């Protein structure tokens, strides 16, 4: 479904990604972790072409992301993305947030988009808030709306960039629950997170990044049981200790 081959990226002289390769199969859940600044966000933003890269290839469902012939907006409309700071559109109501791209990108009729949006809102347990604005919801609620907004486009895969790290602790689980359910339904997911409980529960594989490189790419049990690299071991012991 997602194939990343030898991807490198530079900001001027500074190499953010060096020779990254991995694959995400259909229905697979891959967790990406690693220290701050290791290039996790950059890597998953390359997957839907939000960040350009200078070397290597990324192919999503048969479409090459880096190719100049690719209709990037069209590709992006098929890949859902959830951000650390939610990024709901604050000037639009929850319903409008859920329907905007359905109408403008997919060309769905108003009532069809609304029906779809409200069904997903109900699914994340927030149907009572349809008429509110993002600023009137808690962080956890906003992130659940953001997930619903991405799902409304019927994505073939979902990318998450630290979806819970801007949340107060008591709100983390309500978001993770939605993500776990999604994973169990067979959604293809690439998730940057340090929530190792989530990784243990639903991940198929765990990728560990450091200084722009993929240092470890292993099955979940292998990763948690006996990570091969020292840096991954050190990282794991640090985040599991608290």
């Amino acid at each position: 479904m997602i194939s990343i081959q030898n991807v490198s990226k530079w900001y001027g002289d500074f190499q953010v990604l060096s020779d990254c390769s991995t694959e995400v199969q259909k229905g697979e859940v891959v967790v990406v972790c690693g220290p701050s600044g290791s290039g996790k966000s950059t890597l998953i933003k390359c997957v839907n072409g939000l960040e350009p890269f200078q070397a290597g290839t990324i192919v999503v469902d048969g479409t090459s992301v880096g190719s100049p012939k690719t209709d990037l907006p069209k590709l992006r409309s098929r890949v859902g993305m959830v951000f650390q700071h939610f990024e709901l559109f604050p000037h639009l109501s929850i319903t409008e947030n859920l329907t905007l791209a359905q109408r403008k990108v997919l060309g769905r009729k108003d009532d069809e988009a609304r029906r779809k949006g409200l069904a997903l809102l109900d699914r994340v347990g927030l149907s009572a808030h349809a008429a509110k604005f993002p600023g009137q919801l808690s962080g956890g609620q906003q992130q659940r709306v953001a997930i619903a907004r991405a799902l409304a486009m019927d994505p073939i895969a979902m990318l998450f960039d630290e979806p819970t790290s801007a949340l107060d602790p008591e709100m983390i689980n309500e978001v993770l629950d939605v993500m776990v359910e999604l994973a169990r339904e067979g959604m293809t997911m690439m998730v940057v997170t340090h929530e190792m409980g989530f990784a243990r529960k639903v991940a198929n594989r765990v990728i560990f990044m450091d200084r722009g490189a993929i240092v470890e790419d292993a099955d979940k049990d292998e990763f948690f049981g006996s990570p091969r690299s020292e840096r991954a071991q050190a990282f794991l012991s640090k985040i599991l200790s608290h």
Partner: protein
Amino acid sequence: MNYNWDWSVFFKSTGIGSEIYLDWFITGLGWTVALSLSSWVIALLLGTVLGVMRTLPGRFAARFATVYVELFRNVPLLVQLFVWYFLVPDWLPEKLELWFKQDLHPATSAFISVTVCLGLFTAARVCEQVRTGIQALPRGQAMAAYALGLRLPQVYRKVLLPQAFRIIIPPLTSEFLNVFKNSSVASLIGLMELLAQTKQTAEFTANLFEAFTLATVIYFVLNMALMLIMRGVEKRVRVPGLIALGGK
């Protein structure tokens, strides 16, 4: 000061038809409002386009807008007006030049010159406000919009500009007020707007203080009215919970 105020001067006949001096002020106010509103429409439309250009990833558009802003902001308004009124018509194709100089009523050609001048001058200032507004938004907003598959024009129209404009209503209001004040430059090329009518009344009647006091009051009331209108607009478009949302 030993001055005999005589407010009845405004109701005296000007000696031209049945006009009283107050009529001159009303005509002047009409020109001032017409000038300011048409200049503002130009400034707002062009300024928005330029402001967007300054935030585009492409080099050429951004550079063009930057040069525009530097040029129109740094040359004094009065110089710009003389260029538009005295020089530009000479550079027009001959037919257009003759039409502008001879066929048009002098007031109309002066009106066109001032409107274009003030519109383009203010557009440079609006551009900077729009750019600031867009750049004040979290970078993630554009990212999220693109991630949903929206195309660049949609991202600006539906996501960035509606938010940016809400942020910049206060500075835009003061630009709008400036347009009204700046419109008085028109008096220098003979357009009989409010200031010109005031000067003329002062000369005809020798009631200089009364004339300028009335003009001051009219400008003041105009400004207050505009400020109230803009405050109403601000309230109307206010988004529930937006302030609580803050930066992130």
